[in-house]
């Protein structure tokens, strides 16, 4: 009789608490995130598609309108301007960042005095918050007293009106995007440092020149990083928002030339309170981003080389 209670008390904790390695701990540890995953990702994803078929305005529950939001967008001139702007911008920004990023990274990888300093310098613009970046460049690209046009004037070139014209607005944004490319450069640099020196030495023995080394060794071995940066670049360019929004005070001026897709989506949602339309736009964007990613991945099999293959 006396032995009994002590045995119970010994066993009791094992029954109350789960044994070490019990699957319950996995669930418990992941629980906050599983809630977050559901509430902030899965549920919004699903409800966004539902909203896109309603006339929801943010206050009064919308009714089901079928594909009207989509049809309205197809007939909306500004929508198509935004689509065109965004694709034109992406078509400029993705290759430009790719080429400039790789070139600068190759330069920074050269064994040269002071390269540590050059590397930090390339990173500095990345540290400046976007709003500050836009302030700086609005002065630099000011057509009357900005530095860029002053320098162009000094070398005898006419300065373009930059943000002031439809033609030059997107190149202006592109210039800013290229200025803040430091993080991108760093990824290429990391890739370059992984390429064994012996590859270049072997190529040199075979009589390969600098150009040959770059196209036959450097680029192929850098291709996984190029793929990664291409996909991130496409996604980023299609979502271009803050720079254009800050610089144009949310107007997308001049003549809608800086009205990007994400900005028009924002305006539909929070300026015109057409939440249904905004979500229709969001879903179309999602589909395009997915399709482009899949496309780039599929095509990449032809040009991406992984080391050791």
């Amino acid at each position, binding site marked *: 009789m006396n032995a009994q209670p002590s045995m119970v008390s010994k066993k009791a904790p094992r029954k109350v608490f789960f044994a070490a390695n019990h699957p319950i701990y996995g669930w418990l540890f992941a629980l*906050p995130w599983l809630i977050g995953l559901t509430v902030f990702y899965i549920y919004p994803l699903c409800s966004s598609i539902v909203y896109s078929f309603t006339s929801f305005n943010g206050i009064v529950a919308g009714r089901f309108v079928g594909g009207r939001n989509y049809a309205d967008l197809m007939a909306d001139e500004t929508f198509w301007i935004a689509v065109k702007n965004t694709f034109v911008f992406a078509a400029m920004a993705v290759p430009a960042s790719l080429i400039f990023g790789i070139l600068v990274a190759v330069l920074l990888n050269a064994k040269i005095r002071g390269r540590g300093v050059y590397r930090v310098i390339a990173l500095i613009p990345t540290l400046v*918050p976007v709003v500050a970046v836009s*302030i700086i460049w609005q002065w630099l690209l000011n057509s009357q007293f900005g530095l860029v046009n002053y320098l162009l004037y000094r070398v005898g070139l006419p300065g373009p009106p930059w943000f002031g014209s439809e033609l030059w607005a997107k190149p202006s944004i592109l210039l800013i995007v290229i200025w803040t490319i430091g*993080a991108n450069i760093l990824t290429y640099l990391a890739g370059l440092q992984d390429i064994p020196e012996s590859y270049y030495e072997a190529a040199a023995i075979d009589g390969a020149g600098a150009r040959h080394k770059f196209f036959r060794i450097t680029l192929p071995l850098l291709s996984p990083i190029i793929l990664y940066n291409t996909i991130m670049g496409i996604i980023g360019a299609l979502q271009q928002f803050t720079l254009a929004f800050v610089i144009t005070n949310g107007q997308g001026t001049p003549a809608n030339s800086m009205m990007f897709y994400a900005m028009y989506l924002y305006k539909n949602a929070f300026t015109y309170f057409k939440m249904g339309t905004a979500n229709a736009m969001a879903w179309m*964007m999602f589909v395009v981003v997915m399709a482009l990613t899949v496309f780039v991945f599929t095509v990449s099999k032809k040009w991406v080389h992984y080391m050791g293959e």
Partner: protein
Amino acid sequence: MLRKYHLSVQLSLILVSLFFVIPFYFMVCTSFKTQAECYVYPITWLPEHFNLRGYRDIFGMIPFGRYFLNTSYITVLNVIGVVCCCPLAAYSFARLKWRGRDPLFFVTLAVMMIPYQVIMVPIFMIFSKLKLVGTFWPLIIPQYFGVPFYIFLLRQFFKGLPKDLEDSARIDGCSEFRIFLKIYLPICKPAVLTIMIFQMLSSWNDFNGPLIYLQRSEMYTLQLGLQQFKTAHLTYWPPMMAAAVLISLPIILVFFIAQKRFIEGITFTGIKG
């Protein structure tokens, strides 16, 4: 031949560096100029006298101190939130065995692909129903429920650690939570520091979130507050540049303190903030 090559690389690097540095230099330089000096032609490369008026004027034009506190408050709470949730989830995905773990990790990776615009309105509606729009909470709460990207990053680190540690700890009767907290988390300090820096950057720089959720101007963050120079005070360049310097300063400080970690983090992920 080799010397010529070196010379051309050196020259190109100097040119590229000028492109990166000059805009930054002019931000700092213009912040010390007077308003009149900003319109002087030809452009002056140094302010005539170092003039601190731009810095003083910011505080009169916008409630800069207020915005600074708001931004810091959100940033600090976000960084804490990220540390509370992400390592736990990452540890669970990396080292604990439970049914559904791998599919759920796959879903975690997949949701990183969702553009922010897709989930923006529904999340806004959630906070709107909770009557939290116009408060700081929508900018803080989500971080306490995990960021998929950080979870993925930390999982990679946890995955690479030896199993012997946990086995011996279990034999000694350590609880699962203690094993995580006392053994694995300390080893992962560098990785946790990296995600803290990332979150700090992205909270400090966030423009979209405050734009959607903060409605009264005394609650604005720095990124939103700086917008105010542009409507009413479009032409006052020195204070605008001074403000730009001041909001960049904390990040530059963090960069120089955590330089190595910061660079490792970027190379690993390739993202800005």
